[in-house]
């Protein structure tokens, strides 16, 4: 029986994001005239519940077999609308999206040309929709185990949660010791608990856990496969291990800002100038001493390497205010004779119990002066901190025999290497980027790879633990389900045309193409194939098609665009964009 496409087109206003620039009504009226289109509608927010109901009603009542939504980027809402149509019995691959927001409304000025471009995009989507084929969504089985990279607080906690839930976990730690930076700290803020207790408890549980395989002095050197079926290569000394795993948690931590990058403070030049990291070691060793003496005049400097665009770190490191407060109070407690001054830009005491702690620290006699010190110079046996007390409006010079620089957090040195191994994105601050800042804070844009702790951005211990437990829960979803959906839009080989030359196999980064030993043609492993299309362009005989992006479908789109012939439209002047709430 011949197939007749019955297409429904739905044009979204996206509030005013599209409607302010594009004449939505004209686009809708135009869409109704396109071949195969049975119905065309417009709505304020197609992604809203009533918007989706509109589509579902039409599918049922008008017997639609193809649906086109003209709205935003498929990155956000293609999954939404695929679900919408499949709920009423359409195959999700019978849905097509036209991006008239990012590719049109947001980048061009309002006007006829912009509306014409929106029409063109819709026509192109409809042209493809007419040729869409239903595809079968398959499931792949999942290796029921996880691999955690990094044995700090976050990594240990994530590994424990997953192992406690009954799955095998491999924990890969670069050094010979668990606990990360926290292992070198003296006490925590704001409770002044010895950190040794915290680290010790977790490390012991990790070491004793029957389902955790701990690899110390080990590094991840390669990753293959995909969600549910990764194979991670780990190098441990001379040994090279291949670890199959279902999901991966990255918990590679941070490194303290290198205070030498602020030469005006003379770190590494003056023995009187140390960092908060050095202070912790000193406090752990038992005595606060400089040049063999107990210091009498101690100055803390906040925000060293944080909130500082001069060193490329625009962000706040979130922990240093409290670290400095904790150390200042320790100085007051152990050396009651010492004068303690803390220079700050803003004191950020936002966590539970932080403000109360800050109150106690001030009451212990620490003097907080507002100003970001400009330099430290030598004067006799001591150093002098030069600053402006901005509340007094006066430049001041404070003599000190100990200056503690509250250094911030920076991405760990290995971040770049891990990012390129796992194909992860990084934010402008250099830390790993989460999939969505609000809704998907522990996921990455790579399916099956999750983030925990300070590798994603500065955090204190409770926040790291919280994120670790969230990442563990998210990473267990595929493990518990046992299967993951496999992309249906994969490559397929036309065996009549294939000469078996193997050029496709050499270009495929997923190892999804193999020569069939008997038939002498290439075959596609649909589980490994990600549908990227590289093989289709590499094939000299045009034997490879990517499902859902076939030559016919793509050419139909291009033909429509060509026929339309909209001249180039100027880009909008840079201005504040209207973004979805």
């Amino acid at each position: 029986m011949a197939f007749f496409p019955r297409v429904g087109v739905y044009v979204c206003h996206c509030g005013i994001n599209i409607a302010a620039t594009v004449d939505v009504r004209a686009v809708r009226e135009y869409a109704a005239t396109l071949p195969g289109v049975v119905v065309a509608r417009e709505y304020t927010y197609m992604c809203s519940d009533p918007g989706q109901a509109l589509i579902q009603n039409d599918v049922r009542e008008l017997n639609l077999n193809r649906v086109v939504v003209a709205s935003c980027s498929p990155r956000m809402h293609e999954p939404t609308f695929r679900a919408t149509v499949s709920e009423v019995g359409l195959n999700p691959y019978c849905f097509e999206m036209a991006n008239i927001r990012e590719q049109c409304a947001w980048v061009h000025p309002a006007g006829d040309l912009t509306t014409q471009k929106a029409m063109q995009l819709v026509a192109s989507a409809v042209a493809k929709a007419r040729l869409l084929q239903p595809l079968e969504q398959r499931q792949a089985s999942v290796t029921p185990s996880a691999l955690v990279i990094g044995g700090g607080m976050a990594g240990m906690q994530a590994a424990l949660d997953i192992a406690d839930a009954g799955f095998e976990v491999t924990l890969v730690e670069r050094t010979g010791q668990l606990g990360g930076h926290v292992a070198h700290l003296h006490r925590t803020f704001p409770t002044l608990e010895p950190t040794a207790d915290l680290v010790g408890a977790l490390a012991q549980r990790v070491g004793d856990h029957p389902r955790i395989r701990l690899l110390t002095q080990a590094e991840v050197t390669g990753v293959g496969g995909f969600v549910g079926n990764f194979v991670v290569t780990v190098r441990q000394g001379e040994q090279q291990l291949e670890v199959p795993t279902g999901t991966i948690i990255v918990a590679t931590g941070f490194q303290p800002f290198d205070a030498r990058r602020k030469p005006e403070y003379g770190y590494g030049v003056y023995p009187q100038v140390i960092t908060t990291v050095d202070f912790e070691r000193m406090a752990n060793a038992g005595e606060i001493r400089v040049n063999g003496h107990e210091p009498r005049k101690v100055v803390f400097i906040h925000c060293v390497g944080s909130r500082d665009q001069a060193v490329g770190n625009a962000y706040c490191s979130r922990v240093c205010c409290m670290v400095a407060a904790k150390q200042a109070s320790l100085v007051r407690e152990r050396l009651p004779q010492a004068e303690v001054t803390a220079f700050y830009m803003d004191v950020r005491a936002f966590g539970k119990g932080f403000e109360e702690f800050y109150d106690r620290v001030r009451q212990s006699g620490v003097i907080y002066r507002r100003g970001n010190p400009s330099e430290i110079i030598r004067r006799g046996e001591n150093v002098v901190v030069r600053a402006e007390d901005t509340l007094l409006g006066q430049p001041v010079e404070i003599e000190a025999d100990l200056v503690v620089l509250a250094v911030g957090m920076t991405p760990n040195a290995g971040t770049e290497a891990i990012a390129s191994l796992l194909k992860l994105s990084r934010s402008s601050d250099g830390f790993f980027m989460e999939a969505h800042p609000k809704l998907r804070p522990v996921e990455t844009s790579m399916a099956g790879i999750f983030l925990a702790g300070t590798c994603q951005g500065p955090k204190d211990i409770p926040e790291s633990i919280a994120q670790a437990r969230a990442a563990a829960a998210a990473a267990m979803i595929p493990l518990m389900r046992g299967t993951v959906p496999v992309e249906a839009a994969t490559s397929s080989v036309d065996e009549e045309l294939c000469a078996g030359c193997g050029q496709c196999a050499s270009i495929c980064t997923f190892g999804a193409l193999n020569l069939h030993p008997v038939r002498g043609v290439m075959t596609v492993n649909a589980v490994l194939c990600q549908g990227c299309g590289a093989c289709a362009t590499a094939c000299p005989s045009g034997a490879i098609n990517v499902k859902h992006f076939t030559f016919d479908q793509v050419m139909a789109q291009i033909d429509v665009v060509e026929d339309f012939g909209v001249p180039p439209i100027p880009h909008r002047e840079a201005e504040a964009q209207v973004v979805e709430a």
Partner: protein
Amino acid sequence: MLQIESRAFAREHDLFACVQCGKCTGGCPMTLKTKLNPRSLILRILTAGNGFDLEPFEELWDCTTCSTCTTRCPKNVSPMEAIIGMRSAIVEKGKIHPNVKTALESTFRQGNPLTMPRDQRGAWAADLALKPMAEGVEYFYYVGCTPSYDPRGQKVARSLVKILQKAGVDFGILGNEENCCGSEVRRLGEAGLFEMMSEENTETYKSLGVSKMFTTSPHCYNVYRNDYPKNGMQVQHYTQLLAGLVEGKKLELTGKLEKTITYHDPCYLGKHNSVFDEPRAVLAAIPGAKLVEMDRSREKSLCCEGGGGRMWLEGTNPGTRLAQMRVKEALETGAEVLATACPFCLLTLEEAVKHLNADDRLKVMDVAELVAEVL
């Protein structure tokens, strides 16, 4: 009244980015002795509504444009450029100190701020038979005003010529045709005159086919590198050129100078352009010389108070000169020579040495002069 449109000014200089942390004021070498407070000036402008009166702020002329505030600002604001902008507003209204007026007029008429005749500019090199700059000559040596006219500065230029001739560097000069680069004009706030000069000079250099040039003064080097329209010409400070020659073994220093030397980083070489290592490399190549560092060196170098047009202005507190503080710091190191690589630093530091009666203990010399002694 000297009103500026404070909102437009704040936007132009990105003052809204300021977090009022005071790093600028805390590090400014002038704030301890004058009323100058860049942070508070910024806040005053931000909170002034649409009109701000500059009249009461005579301390705007105290700024030496050393750039300490700007290099350290955590929010990439430039208080220094804001101060230059405020000076511009004052200059535009014609309310300028008579000395500044003289310097600006002299630059306009005679091509130098020193009130010297234009046709005497090349006199320092009359007996040296130097090549005139022309197409095909590898380097253009831009001498600058102070090294052309000031007897002390001339010694530096002549030393440099001697070195370059020994190293076989192919260079030409412009002699009387050379014109002021406009660096100090710009820092004094005469933006219009500066623009005219930069266009004129660029045309001249283009017509002579200049592709590579070097300067005696860090101030000239900086203005060509950072303030002139981009023109593809490679500009170096002479210490960079010498460091290259030393490293490439094209300049062999055969003499001996058994002296302890401390090097003062000129602001316009160091803080403005991060040229810290090359002058030190040149000094280290002097046989017999021993280098010692002052506490405030490199990024922390203390300004000599000669920049930003301050060669022609007393400022609101002529009291203790920064150059005197600097000389005391040099004396503390036990050095016999205080080396620098800037004609302004040379003059201010030398005067400070005299003022402190330290002539017998410390000699102020330019890097070029020291190298010329050991050729």
